[in-house]
């Protein structure tokens, strides 16, 4: 009997140990060391919020460059002709299949046809900016988590956290990013997040004279963008890269894809 008694813990010991374990668990749960791991695993807030995208009707685009100019003003983008959040390109295809692409100062000052009219088979403008990819490569390569996809699907940069390594600039297949020459951080189109969250259209869409560019909530069946995608034969740029871009072009020609 005595032998058996030594093996069984006393009631006091039992309370001590279970108290320590419970306290320890409580402490660990307050610190939540798994928070980052959970986030990495893609745990996202529940609920159906907005999921923003952009659309452009290339048949309506006249290449005036108002969008590129307005974007520079609205977002304090440096005026030099190689920093752009939003810009316009002109494609000119000659009869023998040569494709010429030009974007003088991003289209801010307008365009002049580089090829003689008689040599052109087709010519068109393409306004470009961040595609706000659902699987954005720029977000994936950011080593510090300064680039992220907002809960409403907008790819944003945390300027205060960015270390300016430039990985994202290299990773973006659409060349939408640049390193800000003064701030030394990555900069890109935010879909004018400060405007859309206040119910205003992004600057480029506000000033578009022909209404070629629109934005909207892809989760909202009645939004302009969803209607636009339904009614037009829309494609995205470089779909084979599987970045799931949310910038939809109507009447995109094969030379540009």
């Amino acid at each position, binding site marked *: 009997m005595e032998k058996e008694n030594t093996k069984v813990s006393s009631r006091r010991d039992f309370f001590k140990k279970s108290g320590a374990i419970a306290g320890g668990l409580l402490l660990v749960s307050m610190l939540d060391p798994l928070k980052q791991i959970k986030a990495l695993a893609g745990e996202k807030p529940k609920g159906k919020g907005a999921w923003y995208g952009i659309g452009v009707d290339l048949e309506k685009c006249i*290449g005036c460059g108002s969008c590129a100019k307005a974007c520079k003003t609205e977002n304090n983008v440096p005026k030099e002709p190689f920093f752009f959040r939003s810009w316009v390109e002109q494609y000119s295809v000659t009869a023998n299949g040569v494709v010429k692409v030009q974007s003088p100062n991003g289209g801010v000052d307008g365009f002049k046809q580089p090829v003689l009219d008689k040599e052109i088979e*087709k010519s068109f403008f393409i306004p470009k900016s961040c595609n706000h990819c659902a699987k954005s490569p720029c977000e994936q390569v950011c080593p510090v988590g300064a680039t992220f996809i907002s809960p409403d699907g907008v790819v*944003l940069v*945390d300027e205060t956290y960015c270390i300016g390594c430039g990985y994202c600039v290299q990773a973006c297949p659409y060349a939408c990013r640049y390193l800000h020459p003064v701030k030394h951080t990555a900069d890109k189109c935010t879909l004018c*997040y400060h405007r859309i969250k206040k119910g205003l259209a992004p600057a480029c869409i*506000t000033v578009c004279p022909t209404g070629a560019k629109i934005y909207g909530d892809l989760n909202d069946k009645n939004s302009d963008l969803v209607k636009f995608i339904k009614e037009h034969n829309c494609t995205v740029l470089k779909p084979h890269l599987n970045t799931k871009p949310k910038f939809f072009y109507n009447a995109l020609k094969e030379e540009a894809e």
Partner: protein
Amino acid sequence: MPNQLRNLIIVFAIFVGLFLTARHFLVPKTFGDLGHYRADALQYNIDHEKKFVDTTLCSNCHTDISNSKYVGAHKLINCQTCHGAGNKHIENPTINKMEKSSEREFCAKCHAKNLARSSTVIKQVDITKHNIDSKCVNCHNPHSPEIKMAQVASNQNKKDEPAICIMCHDKIDKIKTKGMHKSVPCQSCHGEGLNHIKSPSKSNMFKPSKREFCGKCHGIGIAPKSKGIKQIDLKEHNIENKCIDCHIGHNPLEFK
């Protein structure tokens, strides 16, 4: 419990404790709340100052302009597309003026002929040919491009009034008023031009170039001698050339 194991556990616990403490101070507060980023960065992006304003603010003061704009082809265009962002102007309209451009190149950004532009979407002109002497705004009201042209057409009864011609051809008028032809009405040489006023691009004015045309006024034996008009013998005076090869028609004593 053996001593070795107990020491190992203590060292391990200290290491974990140090790691958690360091992590607590190094990782930003809201990092990981919504994903692998600082949740505060969302608000940081939202707090950016906006510059393009609601255009109802424009029509509050510029009612007449917005009224004329809403009937023309530019009715759907935001004021700030041409005039730039309005944030500073609404803060202090007297000091901070809006952008304003009357240069041909400015209108050409949208309206210059370009094969990439759809003709059904936008009216285009060849700015290297279309009335190159004048600014667009002389003939077109920029807020409602048709209106000024319509006004010209409705004034067509007063066809002798050169003001109608000057509206578009002001540069020519400046040349003309310097020279001997200043009192000659445009219509005397170019014809009445009623169709040209209605549709300037489709119906061009008559442009005289023959020696005989100038001879009607200046030829000896053809024109009446009075009025102090210079008389020339067309059979002798530089017969191989046209008059306008040497003389500028609008100011004939200036030579090319």
